[in-house]
């Protein structure tokens, strides 16, 4: 088994120490682009798919992303091509809601896939989303809420964002969101979980190209 195959295997079995040892060997013996193409991208896609299929749970998804980001941090990023390097995302949990665990998982997923993320945090005032849009000119704004009582604020935030920039896309998620609610409040897309966030984001990005 090659170093690359061994590293991929330790990622599949979530063996952190083995992965870290294998990572050193791979970095020493392979070009950064080869590592991205043969480990990072397929490893991320495979892990996300396993989570989507119910084969693994969120802790293993997080662990895999952590290992892959650790690998990435050891590569000279300027030497490697990342598919979505120019896409910018503003993320935040709406005003009145302190639940940011889901948003943080989404943020990690975006970072793994190479998006440039501006994280506004939790309990974000509705005006702050529009202000960040003005400042950073993102492709997408992601808003999350876990509560039904804050959905109206998401709606208001979307209105302000669209007033600031009609071309920016808004994607929403959270426990009380559904595709129907997302449409009602004027969002461009809805993501049910971290497993589908990249596909949903790509769909709206491709639509606006």
């Amino acid at each position, binding site marked *: 088994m090659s170093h690359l195959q061994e590293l991929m295997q330790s990622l599949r079995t979530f063996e952190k120490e083995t992965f870290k040892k294998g990572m050193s060997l791979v970095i020493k013996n392979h070009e950064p682009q080869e590592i991205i193409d043969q480990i990072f991208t397929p490893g991320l896609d495979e892990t996300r798919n396993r989570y989507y299929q119910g084969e693994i*749970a969120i802790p*293993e998804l997080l662990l895999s992303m952590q290992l892959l980001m650790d690998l990435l941090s050891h590569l000279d990023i300027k030497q490697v091509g990342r598919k979505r390097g120019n896409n910018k995302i503003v993320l935040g949990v709406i005003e*009145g*809601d302190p639940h940011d*665990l889901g948003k943080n998982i989404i943020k990690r997923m975006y970072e793994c896939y190479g998006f440039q993320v501006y994280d506004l945090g939790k309990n974000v005032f509705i005006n702050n989303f529009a202000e960040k849009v003005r400042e950073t000119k993102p492709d997408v704004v992601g808003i999350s809420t876990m*509560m*039904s*009582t804050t959905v109206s604020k998401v709606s208001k935030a979307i209105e302000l964002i669209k007033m600031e920039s009609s071309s920016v896309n808004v994607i929403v998620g959270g426990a009380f969101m559904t595709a129907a609610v997302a449409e009602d409040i004027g969002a461009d897309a809805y993501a049910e979980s971290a497993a589908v966030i990249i596909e949903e984001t790509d769909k709206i990005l491709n639509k606006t190209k």
Partner: protein
Amino acid sequence: MASVIDFTISLDISDILRSLGYTNAEKSSHETMHKIEEIENEFSNIFQCRSIYRIVDFSLKNNIELLTKTGCIESPRIISLSQKATRLLIGLVTLYNFDKTECDDLLYGYILHGIGTAAIGKAVDLLLNRVELETGLHTSLPFSPGYCDWDMTSGQEFILDSVDPSVINVNVVPQSFIMLPVHTISFVSLMGTEEMDGTPVIFVI
């Protein structure tokens, strides 16, 4: 009059794994198990919960409203289950000394949250068991506002008008009705002489 009770919770690994979303314990990795152990040890597997509850009489109006002295519940599911009930328990349970400030390790944060959720769920079970022993009545599974067919806003208003959250140091965010500490559950449970069946609909923190 409302009663306040403290609970000390110890968790089984199966409680924690279920809370973390595992349907099959074999699926959890060595690293996940290690993190769980690390957090359990940090708290010595002792989680402190505080509860406040009140048991009240109720009446039904046209089989669409459940009325108490402090308000009403309009949830077809709860109304349906109440046909066999004679009293209503209204409760709040919170896990204190647990919330942590920002944590960079997402895996650690997720597991910590799962452990908190498991602990608070177990505290609700203990409270209901204790009330059953004290009153000799059966309790239904807990129902939380925002789930099933019970509206979040009116449900939270009903509960918070019935039991004072400040007594157990729970703060409620205006308008959104989010309760802090985050690991806090508001719920009602129907009580009666017959066993209460019904789908468990508890607030997922």
